[in-house]
């Protein structure tokens, strides 16, 4: 079967790809150093002009350059946090779904407990414990975001263990590790990929939210959420400071959402075609 992306997948993939390119090429794309004052506008942000297409901030730094470099931090944290999330979620989900019984019960009740704690509130408390840094933030986001993935993977793994080919492999004496890695895992993989793509929009938003609450990656590293937080002091005189970084977050989150829902739609169509 030839792979033909639907419109949502195509647009989403292009958006994500463009973002990755901007992040990689940031030093060549950004007109100025994002952490240096380039305009003599201390305490008095300048409106967009030909020199500074998106204006300058309260410290005279170029907003466009900061947004371009911000893509690096956002994508790094978003994707790495998703990797942590998936590692925890998939491990717990596969273990619970495959082994079942008391282990399943214990893991799923733990998941229920985590589900009742508002993710942002818990992340705030964790960051307070660990002190903000890139590493602590992506660990914290992973620690609070895995519940949904664990549930979905568990349900899929559970249905797989009852399928004939898994039962047959088990009857042939294959050890649990082999059953999981060779038989269950590959069949759960498609839903894991979809969840990872959709989940990245969640980790991006959580990272931006933490940054907005000044609990994100510490300055002077340019971060989109932090830029909006800094802009709130100046929103009467310089609303553009808040508008542009927000558009960047929106673009990134929407890209991953379109890509993920595009996959889901393909799956739904394939299922209803059967």
């Amino acid at each position, binding site marked *: 079967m030839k792979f033909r992306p639907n419109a949502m997948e195509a647009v989403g993939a292009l958006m994500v790809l463009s973002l990755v390119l901007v992040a990689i090429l940031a030093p060549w794309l950004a007109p100025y150093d994002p952490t240096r004052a380039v305009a003599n506008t201390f305490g008095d942000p300048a409106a967009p002009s030909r020199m500074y297409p998106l204006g300058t901030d309260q410290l005279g730094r170029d907003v466009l350059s900061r947004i371009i470099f911000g893509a690096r931090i956002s994508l790094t944290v978003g994707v790495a946090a998703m990797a942590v999330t998936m590692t925890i979620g998939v491990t717990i989900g596969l273990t619970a779904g495959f082994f079942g019984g008391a282990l399943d019960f214990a893991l799923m009740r733990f998941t229920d407990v985590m589900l009742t704690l508002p993710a942002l509130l818990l992340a705030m408390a964790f960051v307070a414990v660990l002190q903000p840094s890139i590493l602590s933030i992506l660990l914290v986001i992973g620690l609070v975001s895995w519940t949904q993935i664990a549930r979905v993977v568990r349900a899929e793994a559970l249905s797989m263990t009852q399928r004939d080919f898994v039962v047959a492999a088990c009857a042939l004496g294959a050890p649990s590790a082999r059953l999981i890695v060779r038989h269950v895992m590959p069949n759960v993989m498609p839903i894991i990929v979809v969840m990872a793509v959709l989940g990245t929009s969640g980790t991006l938003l959580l990272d931006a939210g933490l940054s*907005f609450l000044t609990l994100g990656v510490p300055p002077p590293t340019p971060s989109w959420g932090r830029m909006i937080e800094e802009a709130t002091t100046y929103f009467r005189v310089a609303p553009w400071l808040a508008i542009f970084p*927000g558009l960047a977050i929106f673009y990134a989150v929407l890209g991953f959402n379109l890509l993920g829902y595009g996959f889901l739609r393909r799956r739904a169509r394939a299922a209803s075609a059967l």
Partner: protein
Amino acid sequence: MLAYVIRRIVFGAAVLLGTSLITFVIAFVIPADPAVAMAGAKADPATLAAIRTELGLDQPIYIQYARYVDRALHGDLGRSYIRREEVAGLIISRFPATAILALAAMALSLALGIPMGMLAAAHRERALDNLLLVLSLGLVSIPVFWLGTILLIVGGLYLHWFPLGGFDGPKSLVLPAITLALGSAGYYSRILQTNLADAMDQEYVRTARGKGLSLRAAMFKHAMANAMLPLVTLAGLDFAGLLSGVVLTETVFDWPGLGRLAFEAVFNLDIPLVMGTVLFAAALVVIANLVVDLLYAWLDPRIRLGQQL
């Protein structure tokens, strides 16, 4: 039915006990000495030791936890280190503002999301469905704190229609409620569209359509009843997500609710207040889920009479 209700209540209580353990662990590893926080950095060792004994910090950790749970059950969540007030009292005084905001946002998101989902399902796989899908994905992709800031700039600063933050009469509720509601509205509309589309494929709806019922009648009379049930559950589960949004929305609008209080607590490493607000938020989510479960059982006899948890 009674057995089911009791089972759900026991389950909710067990979940809360679990969350209390998590908040306790967080408090235990927070790098701040409660005795120093209370007495100040200049206190002499004897005073610090006295405070530690008074707070029970010299006891083994499981005794400390048991005492914490025991006190929490009696409504005592300790005293804030910074504000020097009872945590429970602080939470109660801030709760109404958050409750008003959360309920308004919940109502608004359902009022927007349900019609959007129905419209999309009625025009399945056609232009309007795709448009609504992209719209709802757009809504869930907007960072809530940015949306709030933009609404504040447009509605408060330029149009002067609404106050620039604070909690002062019904007018001040409009922008925060919209801010908090739009993301959930997009989410609900997606879920409902999927559920409705599935329900419309079922035999009973096809039979109804075969008898000559119009699409609209089949959807309202037959499919909706089944499609709404999972939405009710999800709205309950999503309550935790709503509370995350509350923290950000309250920060943007300077709304004097629990979200601000929690942020302050984390920022000041005010351990009892951090524990109290997290535990209270979890209790709200547990109660929301309990209400939803009971509603669900009342609406759907299969659950009431079935044996599953």
